[in-house]
C-alpha cells in the first residue's frame, strides 16, 4: 500500500525552518504539489511550499491581506503545473493535532479527498499530516519523506 503523502526532504526542512523562524508565534503556509491515483490508491506528492505572511499569536494564525499575491507568484515562478494540495501551520509547544479551528478550515477549504493538513510543532521538531474523512473527525495520514541520493 503506498503512502498517502510523499514529501521531499528539503521541502519538509524548509517548512520546519519557516515555523522555527516564527517562534514563539504560529506560522502558516500552503503545500504545493500534485494528486495521483495509483492502483486504486490516492496520494499527493508535495513538491514545494509557500510560506505566508501572517497575523500570528501563540495560539492563532491567519494570512495577511496581500499574502496571496506572493503565493500566486511563487506558484507561477517555481511550481508550474502544480497546485495547492493542502496547507500547513505550527502549534509551538502544543503538539501535532487538528484543533476545532483547524478542522473547520480543512472542511471548508480543502474538501477533496486528496487534500491534507500538515501540523508542525517546531519546539519538539515533530510533524504530522492529517486528513478529514468524516464531517467531525480526522485521522493521521501516512507519509514518506523523499531523500534524494547525493
Amino acid at each position, binding site marked *: 500500500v503506498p503512502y498517502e503523502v510523499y514529501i521531499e526532504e528539503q521541502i519538509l526542512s524548509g517548512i520546519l525552518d519557516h515555523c522555527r523562524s516564527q517562534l514563539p508565534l504560529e506560522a502558516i503556509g500552503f503545500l504545493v504539489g500534485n494528486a495521483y491515483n495509483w492502483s486504486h490508491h490516492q496520494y499527493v506528492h508535495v513538491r514545494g511550499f509557500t510560506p505566508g505572511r501572517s497575523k500570528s499569536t501563540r495560539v*492563532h494564525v491567519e494570512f495577511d491581506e*496581500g499574502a496571496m*499575491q506572493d503565493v*500566486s507568484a511563487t506558484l507561477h515562478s517555481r511550481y508550474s*503545473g502544480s497546485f495547492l494540495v493542502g496547507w500547513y501551520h505550527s*502549534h509551538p509547544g502544543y503538539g501535532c493535532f487538528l*484543533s476545532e479551528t*483547524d478542522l473547520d478550515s480543512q472542511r471548508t477549504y480543502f474538501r477533496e479527498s486528496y487534500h491534507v493538513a500538515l501540523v508542525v510543532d517546531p519546539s519538539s521538531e515533530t510533524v504530522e499530516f492529517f486528513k478529514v474523512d468524516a464531517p467531525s473527525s480526522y485521522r493521521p495520514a501516512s507519509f514518506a519523506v523523499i531523500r534524494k541520493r547525493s
Partner: protein
Amino acid sequence: VTVQSDGHDLANCCPSNSAALRSSPLGRTFAVGSCASIFALSQRGAGKTDKRNSCASLHSHPPNRATQSVSIGDDGLQISVIDLSTNRSIRLEVEPHHTLGSVLETVVNGLGLPRNRPYSLVLGGKELGSGDYSRTLAARGVKDGDQFELLPRPPGGM
C-alpha cells in the same frame, strides 16, 4: 452571469504512468445569479436568448448549451477564474458594471464552496484588497479574457 465549469485540471498535472484524479464536474454548465446587480442569461424557446436583470438560482443545463448559444451585450466580457486549491477553472460571461464582489460570490456558488468564508482573488499578480470588491469590473480595468485566481484563506490555531 453565465458560468461554465471545466474539469481539465488534474490530467495535465500527472505523469503518464499515473491516472489523473477526475472528480470535477466535467462539462457541466450553470447559469448563476446571486444578486440583483447581475444579469441572468436564460434560454427561452428554441435558440432564443433572453437577458433579464433578476436573481436566478442555480440551474443545470445540457452540456455545451449555455455559453455557446447565448449572446450578451456589446459590452459583455468573458473572464475565467481558476481555483488554485483544486486547479479547476470556471468561465463567466459578465458585464463591466458587475462588481468584483458579485463575481466572487458567483464563483463561490458555482463551484459549490462554503459561503460567508474569506477567499482571495488575484488578478494579474495583484491580490484584490478588501476595498476592491465593491468596485466594478470596468473601474478595476478588467478586460475580456482576463483570468482571476481564487485562493483559500484558512485560519489555524488552538
